[in-house]
C-alpha cells in the first residue's frame, strides 16, 4: 500500500509539473493581456506532434525535443503577430470565437498532415528502465523517464520563478498583470512584452507536449482535455499569478492522480459493490471540478489573486 501511494504521489507530482508548464503560459496570457486563449491546448498538441516528427527525423529524442520546442515557439510568434495582437482589445466573446476557430483549424490540419491515428514514440533508450530506491519495507521501482520529467519540471518551475520574481523582464510582466495602463505609461514596450510572453508560453506548451509524448499517445484532440485542466489550475491559483499556477498545478495533479488511484478502492471498502463501481470513477473524474467550484465559492478570485 505504501508503495502504491508513493508511486501515485510521484505520478501526481509529475502530472502537476507538466500542467504547470501549460498553466504558466496560459495564466500570463490571461492575466496580462486579458485574453482567453482556448487554442492553448492546440499549441500543446501541435508541439507534441512537432517533437514526435522531429525526433523521428533526427533519430534522437533530445534533438527532436529541442527542434519541436523551437518550431512551436516560431508558430506562437506567427500566431501572436498575425492574430492575437488584434484580439487583445476585443471582448471575451470574440476571443472565444477566434480561438475556438483555431482549435478547429489545428485539429484538422494535424489530421491532414499526420493522419488520424495516434503517433507512438519512445523515450530515450538510456531512460527506458526503472530506477530502484531501497526502502525499509523493500525496494521501490520508479521509471527513470518519469523521474527526468519531474526533474525538468522542477527546473523549469525554478527558472520561471527566478525569471518572474527576480528579473527585470519578470518585474515588467508582473506589473503588466497588475495594471496594464500604468505599465505602459511608465514607458515599457508592452507590445513586445506581450509577444515575448506568448512565444514563451507556446514553447512551454511544446515542452510539456514533447515530454509527455512518450507516456501518452500523441493524437488529435489531446489538447482539449488538458486545456480544461489548465484552466481549472489557473482559476484555482488566481489568474495572472505564477505562484498560483504552481500551487494550483500541484493540487490538481495530485488530487486527480490520487483520486483516480485510491477513491475506487476506498469506496469499495465502504459501499456496496455495484454502487462503488458506478460512483468510484465518476467521483474520481469530477473531484477537481468539485474542488474548483468549492474554492471559487469561498475565494472567487482564486488562491493567489494577481490584482489584489
Amino acid at each position, binding site marked *: 500500500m505504501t508503495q502504491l501511494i508513493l508511486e501515485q504521489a510521484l505520478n501526481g507530482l509529475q502530472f502537476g509539473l507538466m500542467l504547470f508548464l501549460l498553466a504558466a503560459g496560459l495564466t500570463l496570457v490571461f492575466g496580462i493581456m486579458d485574453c482567453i486563449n482556448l487554442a492553448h491546448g492546440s499549441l500543446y498538441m501541435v508541439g507534441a506532434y512537432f517533437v514526435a516528427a522531429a525526433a523521428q527525423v533526427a533519430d534522437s529524442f533530445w534533438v527532436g525535443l529541442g527542434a519541436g520546442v523551437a518550431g512551436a515557439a516560431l508558430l506562437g510568434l506567427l500566431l501572436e503577430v498575425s492574430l492575437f495582437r488584434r484580439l487583445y482589445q*476585443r471582448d471575451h466573446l470574440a476571443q472565444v470565437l477566434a480561438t475556438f476557430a483555431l482549435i*478547429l483549424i489545428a485539429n484538422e490540419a494535424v489530421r491532414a498532415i499526420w493522419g488520424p491515428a495516434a503517433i507512438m514514440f519512445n523515450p530515450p533508450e538510456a531512460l527506458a528502465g526503472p530506477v530502484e530506491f531501497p526502502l525499509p519495507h523493500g525496494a521501490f521501482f520508479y521509471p527513470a523517464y518519469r523521474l527526468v520529467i519531474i526533474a525538468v519540471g522542477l527546473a523549469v518551475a525554478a527558472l520561471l520563478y527566478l525569471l518572474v520574481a527576480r528579473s527585470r523582464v519578470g518585474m515588467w510582466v508582473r506589473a503588466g498583470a497588475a495594471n496594464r495602463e500604468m505599465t505602459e505609461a511608465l514607458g515599457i514596450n508592452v507590445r513586445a512584452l506581450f509577444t515575448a510572453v506568448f512565444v514563451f508560453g507556446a514553447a512551454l506548451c511544446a515542452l510539456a507536449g514533447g515530454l509527455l509524448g512518450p507516456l501518452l499517445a500523441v493524437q488529435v484532440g489531446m489538447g482539449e482535455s488538458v486545456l480544461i485542466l489548465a484552466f481549472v489550475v489557473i482559476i484555482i491559483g488566481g489568474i495572472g499569478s505564477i505562484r498560483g499556477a504552481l500551487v494550483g498545478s500541484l493540487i490538481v495533479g495530485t488530487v486527480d492522480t490520487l483520486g483516480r488511484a485510491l477513491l475506487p478502492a476506498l469506496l469499495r471498502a465502504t459501499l456496496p459493490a455495484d454502487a462503488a463501481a458506478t460512483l468510484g470513477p*465518476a467521483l474520481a473524474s*469530477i473531484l477537481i*471540478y468539485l474542488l474548483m*467550484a468549492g474554492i471559487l465559492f469561498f475565494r472567487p478570485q482564486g488562491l493567489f489573486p494577481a490584482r489584489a
Partner: protein
Amino acid sequence: MAFYRPARWQRPATLAGLVALVALPAALTALGQEFYIGFATRVLIFALAASSLNLVLGFGGMVSLGHAAFFGIGAYTAAICQQAGINEALFAFPAAMAAAGLFALLVGSVSLRTRGVYFIMITLAFAQMVFYLFVSARAWGGDDGLPLAGRMTLAGFSLAGDSALFFASLAALTAALLAFGRLAQARFGRTLQAIRENETRMEALGYPVFRYRLVAFALGGAVAGLAGALLANLTGLASPNLLQWTQSGTLLVMVIIGGVGALYGGVVGAAVLLGLEEVLVGFTEHWHIVLGLLLLGIVLFAPRGVAALFGERRG
C-alpha cells in the same frame, strides 16, 4: 449594446419565414429530398438551443460555457423517461425542461456569485462534472449513451414520421421565440438588459440583480433541456457527446455568428453553421479548416455577428 427592439420588417419577415417552413416538408417530399427534412429538423433544434443560450448571453450578459449540460440533461431525461416506460412527450418534454431548469437553478445559484472569466470557467466546470457523471453511469449507457427504442408520441400522435418531428420542433422554436421576444420587451427583459448594461446602477436602484439573473439563467437552461429532448428523439440516442464542452463552444459560436442579443441570432447562427457544415462536407474531407477560417473572418470583419450585417434595429 442597447435595448432590444424589433425592426419594422421583423414581423412580416418572420411570418413569411414561418409560412415557408410550414410548407417545407411537403415541398421537400414533392422534390424527393426527404433526407433534408431531418436536416431541417436538426437546424430547428439547434436554433432552439442556441436561442436559449442567447437569452442568457445576449439579454442577460452572462457568458456561459456550460450550456451543453442543460442540453444534454434534456436529452438524457427524455431517454430515461422512455426507459421508465413513459413514451408520452407531453410528459417527457416538460420533465426534460424541469430537470434541466432545476439543474440550471443550482448551477446559477453558485456561479452567479462570480464575475467575468471566473463565471465562464465555473459554468464550464459544472458542465464537465455532468459529462463525467453520465459517462460513468453504467445504468444509463456510460460511454455509449442511452438509446431510445423509438420516437415518442405527442398527445397520442406518433413523432415517428420525419415531418411530425419537424412540426413539433418548429412549434417549440416558434413558441420559444415568441416568448423571448415578448419577454425582452417586458419589464423583466428590460431589467435584465439594464443589468447587462450597468449592474452597479441597477443594484443601487434596489433591483435584486442576482435573482433576475438567476431566473433568466434557469429559463435558458430549461429551454435548452427541451431542445435536448427533441434532439434525442431525432437521433434516437442521448449521447455523452452532447455534454462535451466543445458542444457548449459550438452553441456559443452559433450565437456569436448569428448576433448576440438579436432575437433571431440563435436561429441565424444555427442555420449558418449547420448549413456551412452540410455544404463544406460535400467539397472536402477537411472542411473544419475552411469553417475555422470563416469563423476567424467573422471575428475580424463582422464583429457584431451575421445578423448585424442585415441591421436589426437597436436603440
